[in-house]
């Protein structure tokens, strides 16, 4: 490739960096002051593009376009203030996990609201009045609007920088970022400060989204795509640092541009198309930075303000009643293939539920007792599913062997990713696990030759006798029962206690000779391994596996299942997964707006029902004075 093409891509990268900067700066400011990672920031960005589109179309002309962009920023800022007042204000003291989930619920709700308002089609805005042309650079034509974008980001950075340095509001913000208690002590109205900061952050996102209107069509998938990028930028740059956000936006955009510019490289034995690995590349950059500088390039270690979870009861072995209940349910499930002869769908649903149960139970293993809130459990599901499918398709393994290999493939992935993940905690761990899951997703999505790309792997059907839905259901049942009992056994053994010890008090755990990181790493690996079983079962149950099935929504589904059941109980994930999987198969399939529905479920859970179903039941039985096993 030529140098000029290379430089052209580099300049192109700079204009991409602009959008990234706006959203990341907003995300970063909000986190700095409120300590909330607003996953819905990508949604605000997306809203920006849609609103700017509508304004430009309705009003028209230069006023509609340029005035529309400014107006959009203000509107999105107002929406941000509204969100802060109505929702976030209630959860500042809630555990981090709940904050993350609540903002994710917003993603779902805003996405469906956008679908409802604007419809599913991509909407391309008008050309920018006054900047519709192109300039010739390195022998290629670069739209003038892109040049404008390249300039506007550093301009905004400078304005923000001075605003933060010179104004009272800016000084307050910086003080709050460094020490929240101090601001409270100064008698500053914290509520007003938080609302303003959230509005400012939202405004930046809205502005960033609005500026894209002449460049890219408004699209409903933007929210998650962009928040992934923004996470990477914020983490690389350092939470709370705006200059860091700019630096990181440039690095990430340039790394991507570099991948595209390199293109296909012939390595002799095989040729690699680097332009297919842009997503992988950016997450690798993030992983490296997180390991080398856990607080980002320009970030500072954050004061420890981790909110502690609700106090948890000691775990107790299952009561006779719980054992009986389990046995009855097991007998009923064993009889299901007989009962279901008239409605085969029941068995398909049953298998889905069992897969969800394995998935959620394995996630709970690290989330609950381990205190590691993984936002990327889909990775191990995906590794199991793709591992099994590809081993059967490409290596010709028989079905059962492929199914056995699934947890091993997932185990290898979990050992690798887990080693990095346990070095972090809180939101950083959440983001790193999410990043790893995105790497897996991006790999299978972009590596078409091996994984089938967006089509996935098809024709992964189980061999006889499991090709009958009854037999397959029983196979899934056996796996689920084994997984539940095994993980439960581990939790009651010293290993499980050590995991909880490391979560309850790392200081005390280390002081009695427990290597907390190592224990949590092994816990992570065990959870990933068991999750791989769920993935393998899924592939054979559906006869195929595609990237869609292992996307971030699957990770979030898992979190919701665990919370729905109750994170502090051991039967919680089983209950939660069952209820959720049935809901998903029945209610959610009925409506086009299932995302909003899911979002509302999450919000209700977080705001009104933080103990989950099993948690609420067990505290109810305790209140009734029964000697029922507290956390069993």
């Amino acid at each position, binding site marked *: 490739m030529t140098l000029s093409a290379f430089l052209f891509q580099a300049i192109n990268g700079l204009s991409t960096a602009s959008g990234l900067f706006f959203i990341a700066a907003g995300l970063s400011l909000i986190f700095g002051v409120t300590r909330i990672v607003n996953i819905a920031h990508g949604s605000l960005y997306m809203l920006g593009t849609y609103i700017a589109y509508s304004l430009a179309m309705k009003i028209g002309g230069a006023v509609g376009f340029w005035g529309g962009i400014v107006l959009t920023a203000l509107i999105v800022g107002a929406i941000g203030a509204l969100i802060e007042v109505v929702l976030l204000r209630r959860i500042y003291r809630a555990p981090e996990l709940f904050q993350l989930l609540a903002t994710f619920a917003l993603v779902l709700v805003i996405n469906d609201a956008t679908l409802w308002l604007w419809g599913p089609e991509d909407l391309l805005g008008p050309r920018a009045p006054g900047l519709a042309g192109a300039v010739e650079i390195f022998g290629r034509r670069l739209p003038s609007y892109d040049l404008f974008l390249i300039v506007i980001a550093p301009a905004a950075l400078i304005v923000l920088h001075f605003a933060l340095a010179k104004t009272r509001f800016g000084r307050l913000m910086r003080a709050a970022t460094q020490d929240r208690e101090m601001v409270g002590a100064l008698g500053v109205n914290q509520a007003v400060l938080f609302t303003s900061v959230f509005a400012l952050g939202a405004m930046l996102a809205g502005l960033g989204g609005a500026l894209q209107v002449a460049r890219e069509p408004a699209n409903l998938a933007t929210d998650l795509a962009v928040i992934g990028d923004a996470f990477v930028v914020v983490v690389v740059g350092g939470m709370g640092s705006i200059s860091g956000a700019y630096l990181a936006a440039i690095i990430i955009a340039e790394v991507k541009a570099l991948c595209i510019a390199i293109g296909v490289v012939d390595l002799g034995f095989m040729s690699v198309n680097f332009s297919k690995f842009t997503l992988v590349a950016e997450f690798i950059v993030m992983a490296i930075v997180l390991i080398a500088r856990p607080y980002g390039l320009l970030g500072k270690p954050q004061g420890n303000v981790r909110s502690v979870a609700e106090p948890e009861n*000691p775990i107790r072995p299952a009561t006779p009643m719980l054992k009986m209940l389990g046995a009855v349910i097991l007998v009923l499930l064993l009889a299901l293939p007989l009962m279901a002869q008239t409605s085969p769908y029941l068995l398909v649903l049953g298998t889905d539920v069992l897969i969800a149960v394995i998935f959620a139970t394995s996630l709970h293993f690290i989330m609950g007792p381990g205190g590691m809130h993984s936002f990327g459990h889909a990775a191990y599901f995906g590794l199991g599913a793709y591992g099994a499918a590809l081993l059967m398709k490409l290596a010709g393994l028989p079905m059962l062997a492929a199914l056995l290999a699934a947890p091993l493939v997932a185990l290898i992935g979990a050992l690798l990713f887990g080693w990095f993940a346990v070095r972090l905690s809180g939101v950083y761990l959440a983001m790193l696990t999410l990043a790893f899951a995105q790497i897996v997703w991006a790999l299978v999505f972009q590596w078409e030759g091996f994984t089938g790309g967006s089509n996935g792997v098809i024709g992964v059907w189980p061999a006889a006798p499991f090709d009958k839905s009854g037999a397959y259901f029983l196979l899934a049942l056996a796996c689920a029962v084994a997984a539940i009992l095994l993980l439960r056994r581990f939790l009651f*053994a010293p290993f499980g206690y*050590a995991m909880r010890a490391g979560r309850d008090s790392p200081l005390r755990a280390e002081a009695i000779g427990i290597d907390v990181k190592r*224990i949590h790493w*092994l816990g992570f690996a065990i959870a990933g391994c068991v999750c791989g079983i769920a993935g393998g079962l899924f592939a054979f149950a559906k006869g195929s596996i595609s990237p869609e099935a292992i996307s971030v929504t699957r990770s979030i589904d898992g979190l919701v299942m665990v919370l729905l059941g109750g994170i502090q109980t051991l039967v919680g994930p089983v209950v939660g997964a069952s209820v959720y999987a049935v809901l998903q198969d029945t209610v959610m399939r009925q409506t086009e707006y299932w995302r909003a529905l899911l979002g509302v479920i999450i919000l209700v859970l977080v705001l009104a029902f933080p103990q989950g179903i099993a948690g609420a039941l067990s505290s109810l039985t305790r209140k009734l004075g029964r000697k029922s096993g507290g956390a069993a």
Partner: protein
Amino acid sequence: MSVLSVRSLSKTFGGVHAVNEVSFDIGKGEFLALIGPNGAGKSTTFNMINGQLAPDAGDILIGDKSICGLAPRDIWRLGVGRTFQVAATFGSMTVVENVQMALISHAGRILSLWRPAASLYRERALELLAQVGMADAADRPSRELAYGDVKRIELAIALANDPQLLLMDEPTAGMAPRERNDLIKLVKTLVIERGISVLFTEHSMDVVFSYADRIIVLARGRLIADGDAAAIRDNAKVREVYFGTGKTFQEASS
């Protein structure tokens, strides 16, 4: 030979000399009090001995083995138990399970995946709890206990690996005067029975003067005195540190 030798230990935090060229020894079975005003560097000294903080300079020896650079868990394996200024136990476990965890770890069975932990070393754990007077609370969740009782649990945990040295940072913080006295008395008896050496900090001078075998005094990171109760009481520098601020020993302890 000393159980613990601290040699010219130093630590600075961004220009603040938290601990400055501090040296002292503890003999076998000795009950040594480390006193000094708030911010004198006591906790920092503890944290370096226990491996939580790396010293900037100096050396720490257990017997004749240097423990600089070792992790807290490795130092624990050398027989150094510890209680924290802010008591730390496992809140989601019962009292006896807290002690059992230390015993399981001591036996090297932490990675075991099969036998239920609650059945391991329960008897021994109950014995330890009885020694600190907490046997009745064995099956209560540890997070439900009063703060003073949590400190006792910590003591039982710290005794689980038969330590030769016990580090106790403000073991009586947050306790009523009566309770303070009882706890230190308890520690002293255990120490004599088992021949353990103890380094502890304590704000109540009454308690220190009546129980400590020897007292060392830190002020602004420097060791300013080392001797028995009488010597410390009459030491001019110590009086200056405590009285110079217009405080008596008692007031300084609040």
